[in-house]
């Protein structure tokens, strides 16, 4: 789903308390849609047990 440019504008103003270059709003909407879609497209494989900090332990577990 495409993120609406006015959502980017509102997040900038209301959540980040930042001004945003109007010329960037549409570009950012496209970029955020792409990143958002990539993550959402992959999360079905995650379970409750997949912790965000498990990565280092994984490297140790498979170390040679």
């Amino acid at each position: 789903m495409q993120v609406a440019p006015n959502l980017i504008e509102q997040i900038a103003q209301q959540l980040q308390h930042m001004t945003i270059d109007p010329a960037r709003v549409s570009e950012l909407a496209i970029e955020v849609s792409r990143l958002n879609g990539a993550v959402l497209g992959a999360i079905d494989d995650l379970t409750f047990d997949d912790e965000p900090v498990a990565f280092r332990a994984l490297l140790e577990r498979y170390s040679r």
Partner: protein
Amino acid sequence: MSRELALLDLSEVAAGIASGDISSVAATEACLERIHEWQPVLNCFIRLDEDSALRTAAERDRELARGCRRGCLHGVPLAHKDLFYREGQISTAGSLILHEQTARFTATVLRRLDDAGAVDLGTLNMSEFAAGPTGHNVHFGNCHNAFHPDHVAGGSSSGSAAAVAARLVFGALGTDTGASIRVPAAVNGVTGLKPTYGRISRYGVFPRSWSLDHVGPIGRTARDCALLLQATSGRDPHDPSAADRLPAQFEDAFDTNRIDGLRIGVPAESALGEIHPEIAAALLEARKTLEKLGAKIRTVPFPDPKPLYFVAETLIKSESAAIHRKWLNTRTQDYAAHVRVRIEAGLYVPATQYIDALRLRTLLTERFIHQTMAEIDLLYLPLVPFPVPTIAETDVEQKGGEEVLGVVGRMTQFTRPINLLGLPALSVPCGFCSKGLPIAFQLVGHPFDEATLLRAADAFQQVTDYHRRVPVLRSAPAQSSTVAR
């Protein structure tokens, strides 16, 4: 004599100093002589600490005369990307924003290099805030490729790779968040190691992305990288991501300089997408060389790299936005536009998506180890899949546009996914294109198995001479810019 000294490898000069055949002062003067010749062309250095380097070198010689050898790098002149803090000195991170900011403490890696006896020649050019794989920098001037100054030096550790390639320093540290050691090393014909995530401390290193930043060495050879890794690795209570491991030891790795039976995986051509014919030919030739040395080559499954790439991008942008939020609001004009746009999107990624990207990292890495790495010791991949582009062709700030962004994006297509996986990866020179610019392949290893990576690269370098080719000094390009402070 001094010119010949500068052409030695790091391991050769370290051995020469240790045996008393070479003085640290002579080695340092040899580097300085070349720096003065090459700096106007390459623009590698942001700051040159000539007097303090000579003082340190003289002290190292006096120590050795007293029978005191600090460590494996005693008396060896080095310089590093300008984002490693040294107390009381400025680390610009290639930016205008930090160009007057003095560090309050010294990075663990610099302390370890001091303890190992290294001589610090100064700080090296880089992409602003380590953002960008080409080496463009609007504040300090672009860094230029050591083999042809019209071409990119790669980024973000541009100065580190170009300086090592031009024989201005014997080795250098860089950082790698998506490509920033391996791409500059590849395009300058030197050897660059991104170690396993956590192998080398990040404490005192200006961050691009805490989750994906890796500190690593750039040297002329795999053996040089091994010495630098040995001197800088190990546990660090200041860095929460540092692995609880002793410093890596590689003395034995090169004793048995054979790769008989080593299992090297190669993805099917169809899984890699478009590779320029000159690059493909060099990669095939290098693969055959590894095979002749005894490696067993086999085809392995290779996942679609896009999910790895975009999950990595989500992490980089989210973390970068957190790092830069204050300045993005108050000092917008002090960023190059092409750097600012690499960061901004992170301000709009929901926290849940960022957390899920972290969770996906573990899942995708485990899957990659099972599906791609399980039956092999090393994975063989392209690095930059086309000949080294020119500075003009990749100038996002001046030219922009989809075509330029496409070229820049493709420079990291085989490196950024490996940062997400945290696996060690090495850039190894393996040829030159018809324009005389370097070509490299990439080896990827199992977690904390840098020794196998370096052993394979060393075996390759014992029978090839791509890493030995010394660039010829050309005249400075019209846009060549600054002189080191």
